[in-house]
């Protein structure tokens, strides 16, 4: 697989232009947004949260991860952008190992600085939004492209306004998070995650902290983004959303992937009893 390709200087981002267009990549060439998770184990103390996860998400696809709480869904996302370190196994995006670089037969842990660079290619949307409360919506979106990617402020600001317009918040650019509703805050957070032009977008229960009425507006934004070329992994309990948008549905339980496949298969004709039991409760 491409993840083992020797890259002596990882951490230095390949220019987006050099990556192949999504969906057109040959299986053995690094493409924009290919996520590979191989044999990932993660424990907190004696509690094994991830017990050997293998998962490949093809570029441009939308994968919805379902599962009961405590099944390791969120941890898996956090491992993918290296907010959590893995105990065993590896994660690669477009063939770049996350958190490590390969030198011959050894893996060297990357410095935080290089990990931060890797993270600009992986957008993360939190359950609790985590917007910066002291900055306006626009400043929230502008911060990372300017300070992490060193792009010129004027250009970034213009792009940030476009992004905020795209999530339906053109009139809220100067509002601070506390002045926005939960749904609006989450849409700003999505715009913020998009601002670094990531190849992979991770959504960690993006609508769980919202009033039922506000869930729709956030899901609509995510639907618009789906199939726009960015690979997306969405942890959610919104089965309807999974059915409508997902290319692949992954069901996790007790730190393992129980089954995966197209939504019609996993949601309508689950092969495992555990999946059936879960879906019976949720649907």
């Amino acid at each position: 697989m491409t993840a083992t390709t020797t890259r002596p200087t990882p951490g230095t981002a390949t220019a987006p232009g050099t990556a192949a267009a999504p969906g057109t990549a040959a299986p053995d060439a690094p493409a924009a947004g290919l996520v590979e998770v191989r044999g990932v184990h993660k424990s907190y103390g004696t509690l094994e949260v991830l017990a050997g996860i293998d998962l490949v998400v093809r570029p441009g696809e939308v994968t919805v991860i379902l599962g009961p709480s405590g099944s390791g869904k969120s941890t898996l996302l956090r491992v993918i952008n290296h907010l959590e370190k893995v105990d065993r196994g590896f994660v690669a995006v477009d063939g770049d190992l996350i958190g490590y670089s390969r030198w011959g037969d050894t893996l060297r842990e990357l410095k935080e600085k290089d990990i931060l660079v890797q993270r600009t290619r992986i957008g993360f949307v939190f359950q609790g939004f985590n917007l910066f409360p002291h900055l306006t919506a626009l400043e929230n979106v502008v911060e990372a492209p300017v300070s992490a990617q060193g792009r010129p402020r004027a250009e970034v600001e213009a792009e940030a306004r476009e992004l905020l317009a795209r999530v339906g918040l053109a009139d809220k650019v100067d509002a601070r998070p506390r002045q926005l509703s939960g749904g609006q805050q989450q849409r700003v957070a999505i715009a913020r995650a998009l601002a670094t032009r990531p190849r992979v977008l991770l959504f960690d229960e993006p609508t769980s902290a919202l009033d039922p009425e506000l869930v729709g507006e956030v899901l609509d934004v995510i639907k618009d983004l789906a199939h726009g070329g960015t690979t997306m992994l969405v942890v959610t309990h919104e089965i309807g959303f999974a059915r409508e948008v997902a290319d692949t549905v992954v069901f996790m339980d007790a730190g393992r992937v129980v089954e995966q496949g197209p939504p019609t298969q996993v949601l309508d004709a689950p092969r495992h009893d555990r999946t059936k039991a879960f879906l019976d409760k949720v649907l």
Partner: protein
Amino acid sequence: MSTLSLPQDESRQLAPPPGNLPDPPGVATLAPASATAPTDSTTTATDATRWEDLKVVPARLPGRWIATAGVAVLLAMVVSSLVTNPKWEWTIVAQYLTWPSVLNGLWGTIRLTAVAAIIGFGLGTILALMRLSRSPLLQAVSSAYTWVFRSVPLILQLLLWYNLAYLYPTLSLGVPFGPGFLEFGTLDVIDKFGAAILGLGLSQAAYSSEIVRAGILSVDQGQHEAAASLGIPRSRQTLRIVLPQAMRTIVPTSVNEIIGLVKGTSVVYVLAYGELFYTIGVIYGRNQRVVPLLMVAAIWYLVITTVLTIAQYYVERHYAKGAVRTLPPTPVQRVRWTLQVAWSRITGRPVPAHLPPAYAARAAVGRGHLLRTGTNDRHVGGVA
């Protein structure tokens, strides 16, 4: 009706105790339904439409009146004794308040406070970041520093720094354990002022580091994660994301510390450095007017503290930007708006358009009217 009175008021109005039924003179009668059928205490719908016509009698609070009167008398006694007792010698206080050497001493105090605060909070922030770093050595050094400098009394530290020349007659800059390039006499570098700011600043740093650390810890973990997930560089995470939010907790305690520092500078009199307290002492040593000169110092300390307190208000307000939906009005705005409301009620003219709705509504409300409009900044006690 746009704004209703509180529910408990409603119930009070709706179900008057039987003894109150004969209406006191001047109070509008209740709706006939409840008056004619006093046993039926659940009539609501028909009365509700007529609440606007009822008169509100404010609650009588005799206890509050007695307490107020008592405090007023005590206050009057204090003021009268300050004025009538000639031994306060207010003319001398007034004379020395702006005496050149007193102003010099005041400048000394301000200078010491400012430099010690800068050293204290600068070093304190570094110590806090060391304490929160992942390096065990940095953590240990920071903890040990705080331990030592919080343990040793300030007055002892001041004398120790002043006597540094006894331990190390010369200081030199150079390679550690190797040759030095620059050499100078300790006494030339650490004079009285130097010893004073070293003592004050270094001990302040120990306290400030804990304040800054508490502030950083108070910032939600999600903020660190969000910043990290966006790839924002580490130093930028601290300066742009974490510290501005930590300031909400840091500012009140820090101003407390700086005010403490202002008065703490008076300890420097042991070095015979010309700050306010030492200067005052020199003067009353000569002219024996002890009390009036102590008053001079007290007044100046009060002035400095007042300025700092006002500054604190505005700094806190600045850092509250992200924490509240709308900032409360400043005292100046509040006074101005209240005056504008009063003026419009006297003259009958409309209030200026820029007034917030709560104030504008106050101007429109008539006396004794049941419509009450609470302002955000104050719990409405009486009738507007």
